[in-house]
């Protein structure tokens, strides 16, 4: 529908820009959210209210640890564990940048201490220990802090007989910690073996993306493994697999749906139903 105003492009009524600079109104950044999948545009506030799930097509945008804590815990209340733990630099690692500088810059940018946060709180009538990863922190990569915080969260679960939920979201190992990073796979698995022996439920939620050493350790070891729609889940990254086989990959390769179909997930849950589903699972274990 064309209005008079639009037509004025061709038939300019007034000359030049008439608004003085001081009266110019800036459009605040991030006011709108455009879904990368269906291009649906909504006000950002509505999008966040909708737990970062596109109201049109159900696309799940990546969420932070804070957002998951707010979704899961009653009234968004929780007690954070080991909140002040940060990375050392055992290898004095330098690539294009010093690891210590990279850490400092990332901490400043993300306001996070490292790539995982752990907390305990209530969900429905249950207590739950949750470890949630932050992709914003060096791709959610696992170094000593990630391994240690998860290990201690599991210790907390065991000591207090509280079920454990791991929300994975990571590209895999943190290369700047090399073999230290690798051994976090062993450490977290060691703790999970103790949790399992204590017969305390472990729910693993694999979110977009969960790959590499994360998939090859705690993420795949849940008593129940669940995921969100469309999440990328795999061991090798899709690019590497493509190079290996020299062919194009199937369309839904390494999506949560693909992984469910191949028998490595119990179910896929929409983020908006996550809390209810978790309560259901916890109650089933309890009763």
């Amino acid at each position, binding site marked *: 529908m064309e209005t008079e105003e639009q037509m004025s492009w061709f038939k300019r009524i007034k000359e030049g820009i008439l608004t003085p600079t001081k009266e110019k109104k800036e459009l605040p950044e991030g006011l709108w959210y455009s879904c990368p999948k269906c291009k649906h545009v909504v006000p950002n506030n509505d999008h966040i209210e909708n737990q970062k799930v596109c109201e049109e097509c159900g696309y799940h945008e990546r969420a932070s640890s804070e957002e998951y804590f707010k979704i899961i815990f009653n009234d968004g209340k*929780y007690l954070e564990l080991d909140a002040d733990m940060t990375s050392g630099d055992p290898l004095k690692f330098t690539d294009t940048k010093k690891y210590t500088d990279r850490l400092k810059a990332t901490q400043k940018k993300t306001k996070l201490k490292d790539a995982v946060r752990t907390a*305990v709180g209530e969900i429905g009538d249950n207590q739950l220990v949750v470890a949630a990863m932050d992709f914003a922190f060096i791709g959610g990569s696992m170094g*000593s802090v990630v391994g240690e915080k998860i290990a201690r969260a599991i210790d907390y679960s065991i000591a207090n007989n509280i079920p454990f939920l791991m929300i994975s979201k990571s590209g895999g190992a943190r*290369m700047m910690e090399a*073999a230290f990073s690798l051994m976090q796979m*062993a450490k977290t698995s060691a703790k999970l073996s103790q949790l399992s*022996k204590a017969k305390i439920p472990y729910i693993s939620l694999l979110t977009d993306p969960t790959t590499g050493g994360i998939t090859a350790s705690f993420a795949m070891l849940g008593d129940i493994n669940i995921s969100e729609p469309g999440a990328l889940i795999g061991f090798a990254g899709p690019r590497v*697999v493509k190079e*290996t086989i020299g062919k194009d990959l199937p369309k839904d*390769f390494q999506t949560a749906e693909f992984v469910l179909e191949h028998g490595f997930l119990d179910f896929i849950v929409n983020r908006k139903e996550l809390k209810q589903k978790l309560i259901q699972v916890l109650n089933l274990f309890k009763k």
Partner: protein
Amino acid sequence: MATYLDFEEPIKELVEQIEQAKQIEEKSKVDVSKTTKALEKKLKEVQTEIYSKLTPWQRVQVSRHPERPYTLSYIKAITNGNFLELHGDRTVKDDKAMVGGFGEIDGKTYMFIGQQKGINTKMRQYRNFGMANPEGYRKALRLMHLAEKFGKPIVTLIDTPGAFPGLEAEERGQGEAIARNLIEMMQLTVPVICIVIGEGASGGALGIGIGDKVLMLENSWYSVISPENCSTILWRTWDFKEKAAEALKLTADDMLKNKLIDGIIKEPIGGAHANPEEMFQTVRKEIVTHIKKLEAVDSEKRIEERINKFCDMGVVVEPKVKAPRKSVAAKAK
């Protein structure tokens, strides 16, 4: 025809000179034993000299030396041929990149498991370059449980450029297969020794790498990624592989210094490939000694120590005063 690495050039020259001298001796019947003796002495010196100061990248090269002995050669030599290979994961197929079975040392049964590389082009393909699929890890776990059931100690030999990153590997759960091994190996009631004999690349190595004693041969490497791939990711090119090899601290020395392994096994002068027989006997002795010590420990205690060892790995920074963690009930934030 022997293969020499670029930095082994002086060794190659000496070996050739010795051969020449021997040929001359044969043809002319002139006694040159003095010369050969001198040359052989020189060779030992040069080998010792070169191998005493290898750079991390050179060690990576040695670990991949085409004449370096692979898993089955170790097992066969160590057991003096008393080895019964067992096949299959009982679910999908038999993975040729992962071998295993019962073997005997001094009349005692052990379970041997390890990645196997091929010795020539055809065998390399057959063995998938030592890159196991999920069924390889599941076969390994099946054999470990078999050993556990009958109280046999387990020895794993690690030599892999990584777990296979193929399409079917993903379909059949490569990540799950490795993860399952990690958690299961932690609780094995029998003693477990893991020895990195060549390449120890990432999760593919760790998938059979949880043990009471984790040892590395002097010229092997163990890390989260190969130097080439590390270079590609961090510098976007393979050209920094030497630098990456150094930065990763992947040598046996560095791994021991960082308390990520329990010990180093010395290689013969000039590396394992220079004298495989000596290497096999050294490894055999290490296995026997360690298993004997481990078997003296109660199995519950052994498991606890195994778990604690891995849980101590890592370096984190924490404020001095630890926040109290008494309250189980959630507090408002």
